[in-house]
């Protein structure tokens, strides 16, 4: 079993947005949707001094993904095969699912009904409903599993000018992501209210990770927390669900 994961080092990150654009180019993500983003935080006073840092964000490929449990598409049975051991497992999945071997949260596009439930459920705003398509589908970061299969790095990792993004298998005890996470120095965007096991971690100066968690960790997903471009989608999705029913 694996769990793909990413550690983003805020000491290295200079907030240049290369990651966001490489992702857009690689997957032809139409404006204004995004799978990968950079938000600037501060300069703001923190208990550890003045901080000016960044929130480079993407899908967290959570251990307990809310987007998966809300997917209403008709379930089907799939056989998953571990590329390492050759072991197979049968699993019943809706249109969006967590791959049992890579730990990536993925979407079977042809079975997505475009209802938008998952977009609404994600506390990180990591999903979007692509209305550019005649038949709108949910979409998001895949950790570039398609590229991994071809021996490539994720697009955001490959373009990161300061090598701030460390990617690998958290279950592999020899991996760098494992080493950093095990050291206990990395933080995740979780709160008392929302902790669904995100697999994107952040390291950096204490003042910076402090500000990041304070400003960006999800709490209750309130309407006020939903960013403007997503609001419209959430409403549309709700309408669509009514129609489906």
């Amino acid at each position, binding site marked *: 079993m694996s769990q793909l994961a990413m550690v983003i080092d805020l000491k290295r990150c200079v907030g240049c947005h290369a990651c*966001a654009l490489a992702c857009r180019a690689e997957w032809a993500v139409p404006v204004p949707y995004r799978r990968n983003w950079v938000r600037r935080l501060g300069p703001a006073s923190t208990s550890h001094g003045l901080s000016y840092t960044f929130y480079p964000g993407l899908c967290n490929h959570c251990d307990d993904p809310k987007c998966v449990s809300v997917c209403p598409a008709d379930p089907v049975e799939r056989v998953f095969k571990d590329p390492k051991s050759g072991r197979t497992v049968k699993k019943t999945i809706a249109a969006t699912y967590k791959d049992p071997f890579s730990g990536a949260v993925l979407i079977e596009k042809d079975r997505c009904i475009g209802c938008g439930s998952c977009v609404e459920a994600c506390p990180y705003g990591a999903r979007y409903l692509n209305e550019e398509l005649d038949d709108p589908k949910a979409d998001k970061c895949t950790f570039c599993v398609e590229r991994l299969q071809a021996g490539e790095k994720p697009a955001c990792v490959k373009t990161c000018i300061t090598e701030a993004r460390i990617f690998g298998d958290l279950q592999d005890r020899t991996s760098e992501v494992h080493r950093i996470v095990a050291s206990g120095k990395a933080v995740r965007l979780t709160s008392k209210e929302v902790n669904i096991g995100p697999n994107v971690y952040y390291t950096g100066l204490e003042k910076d990770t402090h500000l990041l968690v304070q400003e960006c960790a999800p709490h209750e997903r309130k309407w006020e927390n939903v960013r403007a471009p997503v609001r419209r989608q959430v409403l549309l999705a709700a309408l669509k669900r009514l129609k489906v029913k």
Partner: protein
Amino acid sequence: MKRRKFLKLSASACAALAALELQGNSMFRPAAASTGKPAMLPGSLGAKDIPSVCEMCFWRCPIVGKVKNGRLVKIEGNPKSPANSTTVCARGNSGIQLLYDPDRMKYPLKRTGERGEGKWARISWDEALDEVAHNIKKVKDKYGPHALAYFDHGASAEFMRGIFKDLGTENYTNEPAFFQCVGPAALAFLKTVGYVASGTRQYIDMKNAKAILLMGSHIGENVHVSHVREYMEGLQNGAKLVVVDPRFSAPAGKADLYLPIRPGTDTALLLAWMNFIIEKGLYDREFVQNNCIGFDSVKEAVKKYTIEWAAPICDLKPDEIKKAILMLAEARPHVAIHPGRHATWYGRGDTSRHQALGILAGLFGAVGVPGGLYFPTPVKKAHSECAECGEEPETPVKSLQDDYYPFASTFGSPTSKIIEASLTGDPYPVRLWGINGVNILQTIPNPYHTMDAIRKLDFIFCEEIMPTETAMWSDIVLPGATYLERFDAVYAYDLLTPYLTVRQPVVKPMFEARSPFWIARELAKRLDIDCFKCNDVEEIIEEELKGAGLTLKSLDENGGLVKFKANPYRDRKDLKFNTSSGKMELSVEDFEDEDLDPVPEFIPTPAPPEGYARLIYGRVPVHTFTRTMNNQWLNNEWPENQLWLNDKAAGKMGLKDGEEVQLENQDGARSLPIKLKVTPGIRPDAVYMAHGYGSRSKQLTKAYEKGASDQFVITMYENDPFMGASSHRTNFVRIVKGKKILDIPDLCPVPPQIPRFQLKHAKTGGKR
């Protein structure tokens, strides 16, 4: 791309595809497999790679264009490049959207409305070039060659510059890159260490430094990939970082020590630091004794500048000033005193400030050593005579260059002198402008003045890719090909990781866009100028590559790039400088010969008048000047700028974060609306915005009136007395909220040594 290579790539693509199919749906199910459509690799996988060189900014990183079915789908760093490897910045990643921007200049255009209106008729290339040639001849015959002026920047401008040179005008180059940016720094280092340690590039070894000083440099907000990478490597290796800036910038967030200095007092700090290290013996005696001249003059000149004197002037605590210099001194000689880049801040004192940075590096012995300023490694290439144009033009009786500013001719004609001469005819008339690669109305201070000058011209034309403000004001617009559609030149990189590479087309030119070489050659023909002897740029490239024993073909087979060994450091016993004295000049004799200060003095720049704050500006990492604001992806990433206002000042003014305001400057010029960013990260006596926003060209449909332009509230400037660059940080603003003009509270007491700027008369509601 050679057929053989293409086949090889196709083969590897097939193998990857086979691998996908073998592994079935273990990690994902390719959409193609379930929909029954023919399988195709997703994303950029399986694309054809074409090596080339980026020009989203002028750092020019080696790239590969990834092409699928004749369409560019992605740009990545060239993995062979020792400078950037597979990485490119946000702008480099977004080059595709410049290429496919629907707002691009597609055809040659002739103005039909008033200048500035942007009303055009489509004409043929022949008509356009004939018209330009006719007007050049007419103006030259009537007023003489110096009535022609050429504003140039970047790779697209180079061939056409030769035409203006051949025509015999002293004004064949007026690069805003120097006169609005790096000129004062370039001159200071040229005279101090004998080479341009800060010009197009900065030869500063942050990678191997034990301490780094950034004075107003915003690495990370200003992104030049290899420069940022080396800075980061230095920090990762444990270098201490000292940042001096009125604003808490991105590097300030990573600093070990941050000094929020009063704008305009940097030289005071540098002089006090020099005095301190000389007094305490914290300088590199041996280096200074063996390799420098002018130490005694420096020692004498800086005696009066103590840390206690500097503290109230710089508005810093004496302890912090001391702590910073000790941190730097401890690392000597492996201390990176960053030479700065954009240096046209206050006019008077700009060259001196960068000279002071050079002297500090010299006192630390931080020259030609790991971690200090280093020497360029010349990369061998041959010289092609194909585009050799004209002799150096004769100087007119009164020159716009050295007759005003003794070192101007090192860089060309100061833009402010060209504009003045165009307006007044003094000392001689300038009647025709050619513009290439620079949006002068969003670059040169006082654009209102520039527009007045354009109204008086007989003729103005430009080569442009986008419908910029400059295009709006042109009589003829020649649509240039982007960097992705053309061969250009052999690019030799002479920094820590030297290499040689070539820009080549990734796709064919779109619409009727033509390469700068083709345009220059066709124009030259019509002017009977015989300086483009070959038919295309490939001939020039082949000729130049011969010097490195390469051909375009062999370079391509090498992945488009060849590396060389660097020679950045020198043995101290064998250290020669290319200066007048052959030594590093802590006191510059050439300056003294022109009655300019041979050693920097502190000349205070006036402080803001009461109720005003100084306007300062900078960059965002996703944009290059005003060039990329209309790029769909980059526009979406950061569509408008914000006005940084100190939180305490905002509190007293009753202003809140996110509110929309305007700026009005000391001359009554008003900005477009801009949203406030209220933060403790800026001094109360300054406001800050990113440069490049607030486009006034309606034909830039995505950028038009997004955010505010700093340029349109920079109406007052002073010229650097050494080389004639014009200042950009000499303007003061108040905030307009609705119909009210709000005074900015005076929260930073001004010491008596610094005069306040005297308002001539209170003007409101003026130009916009």
